[in-house]
């Protein structure tokens, strides 16, 4: 076991835990701790091995290496890939240096992002949107033309919108770790690199749809759902069915009595709880196919939660707070 202090909160975690996991445990176990103590992630996904380390949004500063070696680490470290040491002290939200560096990372992620949120299906549940609101600048300093790509259909269900991609490598890890064959990969290098399939080969296997769930932005979208509705106009419901391929535990997104789309259930950190198969995801679009349990609990503070019955009270509070802040600034 190792004791680690993150932003002044102490927690004891098993050896081999990463700083990020420790921070998440801290938030999970102590409701009074602000969820922002856990650094935001764009590429790390706890259910995918070797994910993380690329996007650099989860960088933190280690002010004390360990009990044995108290020297601070010279550079900010990626918390998702750095293991805890006993006695380690980490600053995240309390360090202006970390927040400044993270602001830089967000800016870098956004300079080649099209910011086409008004027509993007991911808008409202997009991790990059949340990150931009929390850590980004109001205005871009990038005034060159942005990188663009043509849309690609990967098979009948998935649309690849490479222009929006932020190169998190998650979809590649899903294909490596969840499905039999990987057909997509990274081509080229630097800011010209792109996710692509080998000569537009269709990704065709039972669990390929999970790449949509892991995509933090709108680069991989569900073709059966594209442009059907804004996500905040739909009601997420926990539902299940007897499925021979997967657990069958899903979230269905309903408008009236229509099931507009099916996704996996997400936890507090926006990660899928169970992987689901393509049958459940793409073929079962009738409310009769499902046993509806209850409205899904959403505790991420993005736009999807704004129309949710649970958050109406919170919404009022938030708006009040914002108005006060604006009044204060004037």
């Amino acid at each position, binding site marked *: 076991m190792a004791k680690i202090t993150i932003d002044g909160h102490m927690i004891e975690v098993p050896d081999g835990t990463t700083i990020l996991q420790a921070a998440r445990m801290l938030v999970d176990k102590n409701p009074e701790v602000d969820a922002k103590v856990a650094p935001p992630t764009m590429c790390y996904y706890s259910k995918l091995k070797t994910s993380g*380390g*690329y*996007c*650099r949004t989860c*960088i933190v500063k280690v002010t004390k290496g360990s009990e044995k070696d108290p020297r601070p680490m*010279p*550079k*900010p470290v*990626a918390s998702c*890939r750095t293991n805890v040491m006993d006695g380690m002290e980490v600053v995240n939200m309390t360090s202006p240096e970390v927040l*400044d*560096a993270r602001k*830089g*990372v967000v*800016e*870098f*992620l956004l*300079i*080649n992002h099209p910011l086409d949120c008004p027509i993007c299906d991911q808008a409202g549940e997009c991790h990059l949107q949340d990150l931009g609101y929390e850590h980004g600048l109001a205005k871009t*300093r*990038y*005034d*060159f*033309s*942005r990188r663009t790509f043509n849309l690609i259909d990967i098979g009948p269900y998935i649309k690849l919108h490479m222009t929006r991609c*932020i*190169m998190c*490598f998650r979809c590649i890890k899903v294909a490596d770790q969840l499905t039999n064959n990987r057909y997509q*990969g*990274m081509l*080229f*290098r*630097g*800011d*010209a*690199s792109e996710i692509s399939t080998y000569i537009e080969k269709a990704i065709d296997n039972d669990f390929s749809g999970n790449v949509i769930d892991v995509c933090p932005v709108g680069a991989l979208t569900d073709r059966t759902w594209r442009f059907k509705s804004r996500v905040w106009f739909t009601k997420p419901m926990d539902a299940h069915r007897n499925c021979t391929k997967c657990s069958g535990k899903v979230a269905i997104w309903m408008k009236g009595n229509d099931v507009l789309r099916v996704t996996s259930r997400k936890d507090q950190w926006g990660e899928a709880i169970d992987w689901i198969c393509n049958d459940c995801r793409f073929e079962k679009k009738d409310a009769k196919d499902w046993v509806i349990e209850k409205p899904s609990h959403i505790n991420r503070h993005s736009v999807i939660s704004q129309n949710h019955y649970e958050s109406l009270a919170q919404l009022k509070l938030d708006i009040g707070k914002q108005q006060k802040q604006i009044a204060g600034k004037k």
Partner: protein
Amino acid sequence: MGKKLLILNDKVPGIATLEVYRQHGGYASVEKVLKTMTPPEVLEEVKKSGLRGRGGAGFPTGMKWSFLARPEGVERYLVCNADESEPGTFKDRYLMEVIPHLLIEGMITSSYALGAKTSYIYIRGEYFYVARILEKALDEAYAAGLLGKNILGSDFSHDCYVQVGGGAYICGEETALLESLEGKRGNPRIKPPFPAIAGVWGCPTVVNNVETIAAVCPIVMMGGDEYAKIGIGRSTGTKLISASGHINKPGVYEIELGLPVEEFIYSEEYCGGIINGNKLKAVVAGGSSVPILPADLILKNDKGEPRLMSYESLSEGGFATGTMLGSGGFIVYDETASIVKNLYTFARFYHHESCGQCSPCREGTGWMEKILHRIIEGHGKPSDIDLLWDIQRKIEGNTICPLGDAAAWPVASAIRHFRSEFEEYIKHPEKIKDVKHYYSVHQLAGA
């Protein structure tokens, strides 16, 4: 005349052949270690010599070797990093091209010290002709019984292979090199684990620069203590410097560490002074990624002491007034050179070579290149200099591998020491010829 250990016989005709090389004392270190020394003794000599990595970072080689994990029944590997791609650096190419057997001798001796049965020379794709020279030399060595089973009748067996890369700068980073060697996309791995624990094929691996491995031969022959007497302070031994730019005699020189920079630039033995008798303006002392220094700071440090060619002296004053010895790519600029245009060339290189894993480097290098392009084509904005400064600051230290730092340092140092030149470009665009450049969104909208 400075002491030469590595390219002592480089002008001897036919030194690339085994026969001539052996006549000049070649492969003596192999014979010496196999017949008279145990692997720990060789390691001890290298430790005593104080040899530091010649690829750029200057990490003590003996220490690196002693970190190598030695679990029972697991193969260990030695990998030679010949992916020399840093702009301004061409010392390894010269060494491998002229005296290929010196590298192979070093590979055998080092592998014996490390207990590696297999070693690889990972050479960059653009050096394919050098790879052929090395392969020819390897064939000769195999035929002479210096490689293969039971070398020179001892019970040490070793195989050495040349692997040609695809020509990527990033594959000179040790973990990206290992990925590429394994046949994967050359992306740097996240450390830890370090290659000394899990390197190529997941086995303990030592990755060393060509010059470092070659330097093991003289260390074995003369002894570590004797080697440590050459040089100055903790910068021991000799170093190959590839000098280029506005000098009378560009080329590869072997210097004793501790040589004054002024002597290196102006003496007839080395660079032979600035071309046409011009004034010295600036120097990039160790390959494109180290900070550029103006003439007054490269000849003397901020305390007014003369600067020496050594790891410590060049980095005196930190990045505010110092630089690094780096890989030994010594680029000299005279008064006619444009620092801004030079920086654009560097920025374009790093943009092209970024692997695309970490967002700061992937996006930031391209952004810096575009801004610099705008400036040199006469469309720069007054805010661009501060923007460049801010971008480089946010790349530095925020990436998995040092390529992000390498891209940020030249920009930072050029702005730090030559800010007025950037301002001149922005204030007087009429002086610069106007050609096409990256159109900005706003300009397109206006047109």
